[in-house]
């Protein structure tokens, strides 16, 4: 029988227990993610400077190449590497358990690295500028698909290492009761990831064979339908993951308890059942799929996943409000929020992520995902405006906030440039909010996405966009630069801290190789008392009245914007 590595370290400041093998894997996956973010960030600068009409930096061929690589490095490689780190953290660290089969986890990691490199090389060779979506029958070099497939296989294996760790934790009884809420959110993310990767395999393997000439034909509508089960669901992994990160940061910074385990877990359960149906958002303007299929799927079966997001959007700040009020910040509606640690980068990143994801990403997502409203939005630059609000403000900013927590506890380094870290979430978050907002604005004027030249220079039949569209694209460019400066700040802080930061020693920790002896499994954790809120906080029987008011502000904006869009649609040419 193989010796099992049960080497654990307890973090002196947080009390978290790290399994030695898991710790190393979490670090390497997070580092691979941040390297992808660095590459994707440089590409982001080039894309922004080209779509800013006054600058128009790159020639067309380079623009399309760089945009393809930017999409893949950010939407796939940065996010999924970091998510694997989050999964291992949520299983091994939060359950105080050894990671299942670290060797296989390393195989998964190197498969993902190999896939990411092969895919990037294929794109930078110049014959695979097919965008993130690689819609057949537009073909890329076979290496493009091969790289994605290898990466996906690696990620799938990593998901099963996560599930395996849950099994070990249960059988070795490293915890009692149910898994923590953050781990439950990670389970949700992993489940969506398995569906995502399976769909990717169903469509990318035949497409790979087609690129080699072994399959004669790939149907474009079939491709789009199945591909989006991969492409959109991959972004739903992010939603589940960053909502878990919100709960985690609320717990770390405030000691906030979930208002109710039942409500938050049921909301995650709604994600598991329905979130992935939203892949249909991309097919609302396509021929051949009926309105029945479109309406049912685009609405996540009657907006049940939107309901879940609205619940998380309330319970995360609600839990923070309750924790703050219990600490004595109980006056008025918003004392708890005013007295929040706004210079703590984990908190400010998490809070901006929540606001940006809800107000910008969430509302605009529902607009685009409404069958008829999609007609006036489909494939305009409104679409990247929406998903920069969800994936960049929602996911990336939440992950940035988590990094500030992980640097001392996981990497055991003191954070460098703490002054800059205070500002980083604001520069990045507010820059990105403005960027998304003006992209959406330009989209409502019809500016197309993935388009090198909105001026149609030299084209006798070109369309002349109104001046407002150019203005918005210009502000988008400036805001994009601001966000990129925020991104550079993040990279300076994290890379600087991880490689050059002052080391934090762990008392009484001695490395023992697995073959030299096996440590006993950690003692089961004492039970925590059921949480009950004091009756003395809040107003009018509401424990979190401030959050409730904020939620009503959100709902009002949502309703107004929703019907403004219907009003706009009603002025468009009748179609049936």
């Amino acid at each position: 029988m193989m010796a099992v590595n049960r080497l654990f370290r307890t973090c002196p400041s947080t009390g978290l227990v790290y399994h030695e093998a898991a710790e190393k894997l979490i670090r390497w996956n997070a580092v691979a993610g941040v390297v992808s973010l660095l590459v994707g960030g440089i590409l982001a600068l080039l894309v922004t400077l080209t779509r800013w009409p006054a600058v128009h930096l790159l020639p067309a061929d380079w623009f399309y190449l760089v945009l393809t690589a930017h999409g893949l490095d950010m939407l796939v490689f940065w996010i999924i590497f970091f998510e694997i780190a989050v999964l291992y953290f949520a299983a091994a660290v939060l359950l105080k358990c050894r990671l299942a089969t670290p060797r296989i986890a390393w195989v998964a990691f190197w498969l993902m690295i190999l896939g990411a490199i092969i895919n990037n090389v294929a794109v930078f060779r110049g014959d695979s500028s097919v965008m993130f979506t690689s819609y057949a029958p537009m073909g890329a070099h076979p290496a493009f698909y091969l790289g994605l497939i290898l990466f996906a296989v690696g990620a799938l294996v990593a998901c099963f290492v996560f599930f395996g760790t849950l099994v070990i934790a249960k059988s070795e009884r490293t915890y009692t009761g149910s898994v923590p809420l953050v781990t439950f959110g990670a389970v949700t993310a992993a489940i969506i990831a398995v569906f995502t990767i399976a769909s990717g395999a169903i469509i990318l393997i035949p497409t790979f064979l087609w690129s080699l000439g072994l399959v004669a034909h790939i149907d474009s509508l079939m491709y789009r339908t199945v591909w989006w089960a991969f492409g959109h669901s991959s972004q739903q992994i992010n939603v589940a993951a960053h909502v878990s990160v919100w709960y985690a940061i609320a717990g770390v910074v405030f000691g906030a308890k979930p208002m109710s385990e039942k409500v938050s877990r049921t909301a995650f359960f709604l994600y598991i059942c329905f979130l992935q149906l939203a892949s249909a958002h991309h097919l609302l303007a396509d021929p051949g799929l009926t309105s029945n299929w479109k309406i049912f799927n685009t609405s996540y079966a009657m907006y049940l996943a939107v309901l879940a997001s609205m619940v998380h959007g309330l319970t995360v700040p609600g839990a923070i409000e309750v924790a703050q009020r219990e600490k004595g910040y109980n006056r008025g509606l918003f004392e708890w929020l005013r007295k929040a640690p706004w210079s703590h980068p984990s908190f400010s990143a998490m809070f901006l992520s929540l606001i940006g994801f809800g107000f910008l990403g969430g509302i605009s997502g529902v607009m685009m995902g409404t069958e008829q409203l999609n007609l006036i939005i489909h494939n305009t630059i409104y679409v990247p405006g929406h998903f920069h609000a969800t994936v960049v403000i929602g996911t990336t900013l939440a992950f940035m906030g988590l990094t500030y927590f992980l640097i001392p506890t996981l990497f055991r380094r003191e954070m460098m440039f703490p002054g800059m870290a205070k500002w980083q979430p604001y520069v990045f978050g507010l820059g990105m909010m403005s960027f998304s907002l003006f992209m959406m604005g330009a989209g409502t004027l019809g500016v197309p996405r993935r388009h090198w030249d909105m001026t149609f220079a030299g084209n006798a039949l070109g369309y002349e966009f109104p001046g407002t569209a150019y203005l918005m694209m210009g502000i988008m460019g400036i805001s994009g630069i601001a966000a990129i400066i925020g991104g550079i700040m993040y990279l300076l802080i994290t890379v600087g801290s991880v490689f050059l930061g002052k080391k934090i020693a762990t008392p009484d920790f001695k490395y023992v190789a697995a073959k030299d002896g096996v440590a006993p499994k950690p003692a089961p954790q004492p039970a925590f008392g059921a949480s009950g809120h004091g009756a003395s906080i809040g107003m009018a029987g509401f424990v979190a009245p401030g959050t409730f008011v904020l939620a009503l502000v959100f709902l009002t904006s949502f309703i107004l914007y929703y019907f403004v869009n219907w009003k706009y649609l009603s002025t468009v040419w009748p179609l049936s």
Partner: protein
Amino acid sequence: MNTAQDHSEDVTEEPIPAMQQILDNPFLLLFIGIAMPTVLYIVWGVMEIVGIPVAK
């Protein structure tokens, strides 16, 4: 092995409700999370595409 000793700590007065048991079972959730979108999105969608009539 000292599993017998561990089990003794697990005594709860109340039985666990069915819904809590479902939410505590990641593999059941995995099955639901794959089956739902596979049937409702992929299978239904592919059937509609296959059923598109040929132009005259």
